[in-house]
């Protein structure tokens, strides 16, 4: 199924939390400032309903997304008010992918964990949590995974300041 088909199906099954779809487009020749958008199409989803959205995607027999391939977050820029949660779903049966994006306000970076739906997201969520300071509610094992347990700050946020020292070791 191509993206349009998936989108139609999502609308048809009333997938919870679906906001809109975003598809790549060519730059508008009239508007100089518009650069268009390249890359993949994706759907935008309410973060609070992300878990139920992916569950609906998994359980629908026409979508059949058995695998969560990737879950990550993006901090688009320093001034952006939102973080993005990017989820990649994959259906082995129908050989299609779906990119999902959830806009999460930086001030309250909190959303329900996806682990009950896909256990694959367990480590991805731990990584997101330590790198972006996102809280996944209901995560079974919310420890740091790549960073030391006592790490301060969220390194992949754009406003992260590099520490001057770590345990008395100068990082200059």
């Amino acid at each position, binding site marked *: 199924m191509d993206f349009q088909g998936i989108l139609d199906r999502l609308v048809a099954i009333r997938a919870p939390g679906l906001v809109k779809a975003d598809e790549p487009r060519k730059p508008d020749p009239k508007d100089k400032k518009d650069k268009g958008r*390249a890359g993949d199409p994706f759907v935008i989803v309410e973060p609070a309903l992300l878990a139920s959205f992916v569950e609906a995607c998994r359980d629908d027999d026409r979508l059949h997304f058995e695998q969560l*391939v990737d879950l990550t977050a*993006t901090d688009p820029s320093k001034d952006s008010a939102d973080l993005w949660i990017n989820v990649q779903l994959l259906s082995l049966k129908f050989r299609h992918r779906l990119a999902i994006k959830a806009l999460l306000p930086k001030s309250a970076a909190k959303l329900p964990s996806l682990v009950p739906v896909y256990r*694959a997201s367990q480590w991805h969520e731990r990584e997101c949590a330590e790198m972006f300071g996102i809280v996944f509610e209901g995560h079974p094992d919310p420890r740091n995974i790549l960073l030391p347990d006592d790490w301060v700050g969220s390194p*992949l946020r754009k406003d992260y300041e590099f520490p001057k020292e770590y345990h008395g070791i100068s990082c200059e």
Partner: protein
Amino acid sequence: MANEVTKTMPPSTRLRQTDVGEVTVDIRTPDLEINFGPQHPATHGVMRVLMRTDGELVTGAQPHLGYLHRCAEKIGENVEWLQYLPYTDRYDYLASMNNNLGYSLAVEALLGVEIPRRATLIRIICAELNRIGSHLVAFGTYGLDIGAFTPFLYCFREREWMMALFEKICGARLTYSYIRIGGVFNDAPPGWFEEVARFCDVFEQKWPEYVDLLLVNQIYVKRTANVGVISREMALDFGLTGTMVRGSGIDWDLRRDMPYMCYGEIWRDGAFKIPVAKGEMGALGDCWDRSWVRVMEMMESIKIVRWCLDHMVDGPVIGELPKTLKVPAGEAYVGIENPRGELGHYVVSDGGKVSVRTRVRGPSFCNLAVLEDILPGALVGDAIAIIGSTDIVVGETDR
């Protein structure tokens, strides 16, 4: 009597006195917590698994990562598009070509640049040769984990030639940085394709030796069959990819099912097959199945290389690219079939010279998550076999 027993007993033992004057002693001791790694011969790098064992039996396991974390994703936000290429070499250092390829394809998905056919074919040859090399290491070191030293060196003998081939085409033996955005860096030197063909011939002769010496050896079979069984459902739930998922009997290969470059054409030509485990030696999805898939895949890669050599065309090896690379705004996720599974690159651009986000979805990272579930119940020796069979590269789990 009871007092004497208590005195000599270790504090962990529990004592229960029944009313008829009998004393029941519970001599179970608490489980032994043992640090498997970070410096251990069988962790394939610096990974640490905190294991609880009851004698030889593993009752719990908890992988601890991050010893080799080199901030690859953060670096991606600070260097230019092309400059990030050498860093991709360094996460899965056994399959650098595939990493280069994944990153290049992701950026090209945003750029929309057309890749010359010769470049595509050279890319496939390099990626498949590197897959062979990576599987050789995986299979060889797996033998080493099981205790067979010699097949390891036989595997490295062939890998050495593969590395020499790469050394001829790009000048490096491990961190190639050869496949670049828009094509490849250099055209193949004269005589290189002939040598690749020779390598294929020799490899086909040597390949049965690995099977005879290790794969079907009864001790090897006994060590790996019915050990670390990952069921179909578990493989899907944990997002396992690549050899792990094929080892669980799921017929899935990105090269065939979501073809990139000209893999679709090669598949339609019937040049290669996807080996899927059938559970010949034990339960479906055990360690033996996974290693079998790897060994079989090497031969399929040889066939793909042969196809590319047969269909080689002349022409440029790099597409039309501006001098300073500016990538159009947008975001793309491209997953390719790395030797270890699906290597995904999620790149976000705002139209500038530097990426906004470079996310690497390492297959080892995802495949490793299953350890917590399959290690308990295994013996200590099995634990090594299971960790080895997931074929992780710590550079990629930690990035």
